[in-house]
């Protein structure tokens, strides 16, 4: 059940003097099973893009297809789409409203028409998947720490058992440890449960280590759509878009320029260390 965006354009405030072209002719195919990173500077249209994927925003022009059907059709069941394509908004903890965490996680599956038993099972499973501390299942949502709230909110979407999980800047506003934990958790979801993941971020570093495909957004257009190695080789263009490439990649690229024989495609710090070590020993 791939998700296809075909010539999607989105213009906000079209009827005023200051229309904003948030998406400009976006064409994407999202097959099942991928782990995709969407990066772009603030205001490049990332959030707008992903809201098209589960029908929260309909394109000004162009179409979105899910399972071979146009989601802009009148008789298309959006609720069904939202069950398959789960979307976790930026700062998802702001959407928590029930008296306790468990009740809140149950909200999604309940809306999807699951029975009480199914709902509770789904909620437990989701909370376990995001490794939410068990002694806090019935705590008030307002007593939790920032990272815990975010886990609870992600569980709330996960409990609907989506095939696609889209996360809008899930690490925003978290400390470095919290960021790693959330990203590891997401990557684990992809690995063990085989969920298609679309991870939105404005930081390359977050994305580089985990994803198998990077979509770079710039001023509402898809600038690059490729494997990370390829995308990061365009370091100058990326920097012009206001995106810093990951530090290890930057260092090796700099060394390459100064005549060291390093691999230009490294992404992580361990790869960089290996490559630099090799280059140094070879020279000797």
């Amino acid at each position, binding site marked *: 059940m791939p998700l296809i965006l075909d010539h999607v354009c989105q213009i906000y405030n079209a009827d005023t003097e200051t229309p904003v072209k948030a998406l400009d002719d976006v064409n994407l195919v999202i097959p099942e099973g991928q782990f995709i990173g969407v990066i772009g500077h603030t205001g490049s249209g990332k959030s707008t893009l992903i809201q098209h994927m589960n029908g929260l925003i309909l394109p000004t022009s162009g179409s979105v297809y899910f399972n071979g059907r146009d989601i802009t059709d009148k008789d298309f069941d959006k609720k069904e789409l939202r069950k398959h394509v789960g979307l976790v908004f930026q700062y998802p903890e702001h*959407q928590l409203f029930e008296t306790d965490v468990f009740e809140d996680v149950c*909200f999604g599956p309940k809306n999807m028409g699951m029975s009480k038993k199914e709902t509770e099972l789904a909620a437990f499973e989701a909370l376990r998947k995001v490794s939410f501390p068990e002694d806090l299942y019935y705590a008030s949502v307002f007593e939790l720490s920032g990272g815990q709230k975010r886990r609870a909110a992600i569980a709330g979407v996960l409990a609907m058992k989506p095939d696609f999980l889209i996360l809008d800047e899930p690490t925003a506003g978290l400390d470095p440890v919290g960021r790693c934990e959330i990203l590891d958790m997401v990557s684990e979801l992809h690995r063990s449960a085989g969920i298609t993941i679309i991870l939105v971020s404005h930081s390359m570093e977050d994305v580089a280590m985990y994803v198998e495909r990077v979509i770079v957004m710039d001023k509402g257009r898809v600038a690059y759509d490729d494997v990370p190695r390829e995308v990061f080789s365009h370091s100058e263009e990326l920097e012009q878009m206001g995106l810093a490439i990951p530090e290890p990649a930057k260092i090796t690229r700099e060394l390459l320029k100064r005549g060291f024989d390093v691999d230009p495609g490294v992404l992580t710090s361990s790869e960089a260390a290996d490559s630099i070590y090799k280059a140094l020993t070879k020279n000797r």
Partner: protein
Amino acid sequence: MIRDITIGQYYQTKSVIHRLDPRVKLLGTLLFIIALFTYNNPVGYIIGIIFLCTVIKLSHVPFKFITKGLKGIILILCFTVLINLFLTPGTPIIAFWKITITYEGLAVAFSMILRLTMLIMGSSIVTLTTTPNNLTDGLEKGMGFMKIFRVPVGDVAMMMSIALRFIPILLEETDRIMKAQLARGADFESGNIVKKAKALVPVLVPLFVSAFRRAGDLAMAMEARCYRGGDGRTKMKPLVYKKRDAIAYIILFTFVIVSIWLGRWSVITDFFRSIYMNLFGCPL
């Protein structure tokens, strides 16, 4: 969806009306409304409509923005019209069953429509062409004389400007929370009124929580910058009358006097006639 609400909305463009001092616009609206309710013949309304259309034209605000505000009062409008149409005594034109429509009723209903639509359009023009900050500045200065009655004008103005500033923020927040709950399968459209009201709980609870959080943060930030109350605060851009404001005042007063004179001519002549009667004991 929720962004369609236009109360207190500013339409950004360049025009004479935008540049006018907010005090001119505020007093202008007040006088315009007073004038509207004194008219009792078509001449007054015609002058009023010409004046309103000229101002709209000068403001460069698209007409459909100005009429957007009317959607909100359409119910009140219909209600007033029906009441006046059926319940005004006088010479009947149509009578069937228990319903009689009179000449006078028709006239009152018609003038009510004119008055209310012109009132709403006139005040929309002010909010559409004046930034909220300017509007409160204008009120603060215009109401300055109230200080002698110990009305804390400065504090009230500060509260108003904060309230106005928060409207778009809260609307945006509502939009975001609604979308987040939609993504979790919430349904705001179907069902009867009780079900619809219940469906709003997942939106209202987070909205209130965030409003309180924002208010707390703002209070803290104001305190950190040593806010001590509105009295005696200076402005970065104090309001100063310019030549165009003087011209605007002249045009405004001319309009008000002429339109009331012509729009209520009979009343004024009646007034003098009755004085004459009282003084000399015989009709003029």
